[in-house]
C-alpha cells in the first residue's frame, strides 16, 4: 500500500491506484478531458499533468500509478503553466462558436478556460483548421468535427462498452477527425451516452439540441421505467416540461443509460397524452367517464376481473387489489407476473420490459389472488364479463379477451397504449407526474420523483381507483399513496 503526499496532504492508497484517483480520494480535483472512470486510460489530452518531485517532467495523473513516497503537486507554477498551455493548444483550432453551440454551459473547454487559463488567443481566427460541422451520425447524434478535441472518449466507449467499434480517429496530426464508415449510422442502442461523455460540443443529442439552454434546467433524481433494470436517472426539466433524461451513475445498477430509456419521457409530452376519459372512441370528461365505468362494474360485480400491472407502481397495484377485495368483492383478481429477468445485452437492457414485475409480487403476497393462467381460463370460459386493468397489462391476456369478447376497461396515460376493442379508458398520472415505488430485477427498491405536474384533472391511479369505488358506494379510504401500501411488506 503506497503512501504519498498530494498538495501537502498525505494518503495511503491501494496498489495500482492512479494519481488522479488518489487525488480524488483527498478531494483534490485534477482537470481532465480524455479520462473517464469507466473507460480505459488513454492519456492523450494532457490536461491532468501534475508535478512529481524528482520526476524530470510533468506526469499525467490519469496514467501514473501512485508509488511509495511520491510528493505530488497539482498547484505548482509549472502545473498551472502546463494547463494554460494545453488549453491554448486545444483551442488553437477550436471554432469558438459558443453562442450557437448546444454544449455551452456544460462544456469542458469553457469551464477549464475560466478555471485554468483566461489567456487571450494568440492565433488568428482565419488560420483555424476548418472541418465538417453538424453532420447527423445515426438517429440520436450530431457530430461537429471542428469542436472536437480528439480525446477519444467516444471511440473507447464504442469499442469497450457497446463493443461495436463504429468510431475511430481518422487521418493524423491536424487533419485528424473522429469518423465512422461512410453511409453507416451510429446506432448501437447506447449512442446518447456519447453526447454525455463528450467533454465538448462535438457530439450533441439530436433530441435535446436547441431545446433549452442547460443553465435553465432543474434536476430531479428519479428512476428509469424503460425495463426491469431500473436505472437511476436524473430528469432535467423547466416550467413543467422535461427536456432530457441522463444517467445517475451508481455502483449497483448503472453508469450509462440506453437510448430507449432516455426517450421514455417523450410519452408524457406526446400529443396523445390523455387528460380525459375515453368511451369507445370518444373523449369524455373524467367525471362522466368514471360514472360510466362504475356503473358497468356494478352491473357485473362478481364477474368482474381485476388484473394488476408490472408497468404500475406498487401503490397503484395495491389500490387495484383493494378495489378487488374491498370494493368490487370479486374473487377474480390477479397480481401474478413471472417474466424472465436479467440483463439481455450484457450492458443494461433487461429481458423483462416491464419495470415492476418484482414489485407486483409483493402486492400479490399481501393480497393473494389467482394465477394469470387461471384468469385467462376464466375469461375464455366466459365466467368474466368485465376486465379492469392497465393498458399494457391487457396485452398479456389478449388472446383470452379476444376469444371470449369480454368487455375491457383500462387505465392508460397515452391514447396510443389503448388496445383495440377497449370499451372504456381512464387516464392516470404517469410516474413523471406522481411518485411511485418500484422494485427492480435486483430486488432494489426504486422510487420515482415527479419532475412535472400531470395535466389538469388527471390524478394518480390510486386516487382514480378510490373515486371509482366511491361511485359504487364503497369506501377504500385511500387518502394517499401510502394508505394503499398498508399490509404490504417491502424489503
Amino acid at each position: 500500500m503506497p503512501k504519498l503526499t498530494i498538495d501537502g496532504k498525505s494518503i495511503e492508497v491501494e496498489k495500482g491506484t492512479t494519481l488522479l484517483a488518489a487525488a480524488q480520494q483527498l478531494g483534490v480535483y485534477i482537470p481532465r478531458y480524455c479520462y473517464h472512470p469507466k473507460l480505459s486510460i488513454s492519456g492523450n489530452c494532457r490536461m491532468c499533468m501534475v508535478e512529481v518531485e524528482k520526476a524530470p517532467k510533468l506526469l499525467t495523473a490519469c496514467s501514473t500509478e501512485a508509488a511509495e513516497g511520491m510528493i505530488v503537486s497539482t498547484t505548482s507554477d509549472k502545473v498551472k503553466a502546463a494547463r494554460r498551455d494545453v488549453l491554448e493548444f486545444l483551442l488553437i483550432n477550436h471554432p469558438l462558436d459558443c453562442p450557437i453551440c448546444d454544449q455551452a454551459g456544460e462544456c469542458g473547454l469553457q469551464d477549464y478556460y475560466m478555471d485554468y487559463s483566461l489567456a487571450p488567443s494568440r492565433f488568428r481566427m482565419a488560420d483555424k483548421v476548418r472541418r465538417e460541422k453538424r453532420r447527423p451520425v445515426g438517429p440520436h447524434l450530431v457530430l461537429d468535427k471542428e469542436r472536437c478535441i480528439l480525446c477519444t472518449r467516444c471511440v473507447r466507449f464504442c469499442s469497450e462498452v457497446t463493443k461495436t467499434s463504429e468510431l475511430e480517429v481518422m487521418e493524423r496530426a491536424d487533419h485528424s477527425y473522429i469518423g465512422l464508415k461512410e453511409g453507416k449510422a451510429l446506432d448501437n442502442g447506447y449512442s446518447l451516452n456519447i453526447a454525455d461523455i463528450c467533454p465538448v460540443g462535438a457530439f450533441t443529442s439530436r433530441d435535446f439540441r436547441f431545446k433549452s439552454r442547460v443553465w435553465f434546467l432543474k434536476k430531479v433524481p428519479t428512476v428509469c421505467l424503460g425495463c426491469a433494470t431500473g436505472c437511476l436517472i436524473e430528469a432535467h426539466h423547466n416550467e413543467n416540461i422535461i427536456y432530457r433524461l441522463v444517467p445517475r451513475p451508481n455502483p449497483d445498477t448503472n453508469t450509462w443509460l440506453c437510448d430507449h430509456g432516455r426517450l421514455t419521457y417523450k410519452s408524457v409530452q406526446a400529443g396523445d397524452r390523455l387528460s380525459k376519459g375515453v368511451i369507445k372512441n370518444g373523449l369524455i370528461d373524467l367525471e362522466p367517464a368514471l360514472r360510466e365505468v362504475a356503473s358497468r362494474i356494478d352491473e357485473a360485480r362478481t364477474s368482474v376481473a381485476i388484473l394488476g400491472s408490472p408497468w404500475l407502481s406498487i401503490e397503484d397495484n395495491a389500490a387495484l387489489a383493494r378495489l378487488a377485495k374491498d370494493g368490487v368483492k370479486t374473487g377474480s383478481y390477479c397480481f401474478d407476473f413471472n417474466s424472465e429477468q436479467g440483463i439481455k445485452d450484457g450492458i443494461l437492457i433487461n429481458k423483462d420490459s416491464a419495470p415492476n414485475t418484482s414489485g407486483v409480487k409483493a402486492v400479490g403476497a399481501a393480497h393473494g389472488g389467482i394465477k394469470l393462467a387461471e384468469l385467462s381460463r376464466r375469461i375464455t370460459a366466459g365466467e368474466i364479463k368485465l376486465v379492469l386493468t392497465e393498458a399494457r397489462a391487457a396485452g398479456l391476456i389478449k388472446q383470452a379477451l379476444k376469444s371470449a369478447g369480454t368487455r375491457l376497461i383500462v387505465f392508460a396515460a397515452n391514447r396510443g397504449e389503448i388496445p383495440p376493442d377497449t370499451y372504456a379508458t381512464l387516464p392516470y398520472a404517469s410516474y413523471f407526474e406522481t411518485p411511485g415505488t418500484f422494485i427492480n430485477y435486483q430486488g432494489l427498491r426504486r422510487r420515482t420523483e415527479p419532475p412535472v405536474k400531470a395535466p389538469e384533472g388527471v390524478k394518480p391511479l390510486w386516487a382514480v381507483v378510490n373515486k371509482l369505488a366511491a361511485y359504487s358506494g364503497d369506501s377504500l379510504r385511500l387518502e394517499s399513496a401510502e394508505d394503499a401500501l398498508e399490509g404490504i411488506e417491502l424489503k
Partner: protein
Amino acid sequence: MAFILSEEFKARAAKICARYPRADAALIPLLLELQKEAGYVAEEGMDALAQLLELPYSRVKAVTTFYTMFKREPAGKYHLQVCRNISCHMAGAAGLLDGLKKKLAIEEGETTKDGIFTLSSVECLGACGSAPVMQVNEHYFENLNEEKLDALLEELKHGRLPRH
C-alpha cells in the same frame, strides 16, 4: 460493388498473419500487400481486409489514413512525396514543394493530366541528416535544391528514374 480478395492474396495473408501473435498486428503488412497489388488501397479493400482479419472497419480505415505511405486513390507513374517535417522544412522543403506545384500545375494530392506525376507532402521520411528529402515511389532523393530537382524532373519526364 463487391471487392473480392484473390485466393492468392488470402494465401499470402495467411502466411503473413502466422508471423504475428495477433491479427491486428498483421494489418500494416497486409495493407502494404494490398497497395502493391493495385497501386493504392481502395475503400472496398479496407472493408474486405477488415472482414478477413475480423477487425472493425473503422480500425482499418484509421490505420490506413494515419500513414501517408498508403495511397487511397490511384497515383501517377511517379509519386513525388516531399517531406514536410521540421528538418526538411528548415532546409527549404516548402520552397521545393511550391516550385513543384508551379512546374507541374497541380496542387498537393493531385495527379498531372498525363498521369505521370502525383504530388504529395508527407510526414518525416527519417532522413533528416540529408534534408530536404523527397521520395519518388520507393526511392529517396536527398540534399535537394532547385537545380537538382529540375534535373530530376526532366529525367522522370523521359521515363528514366536516375540513380540516387
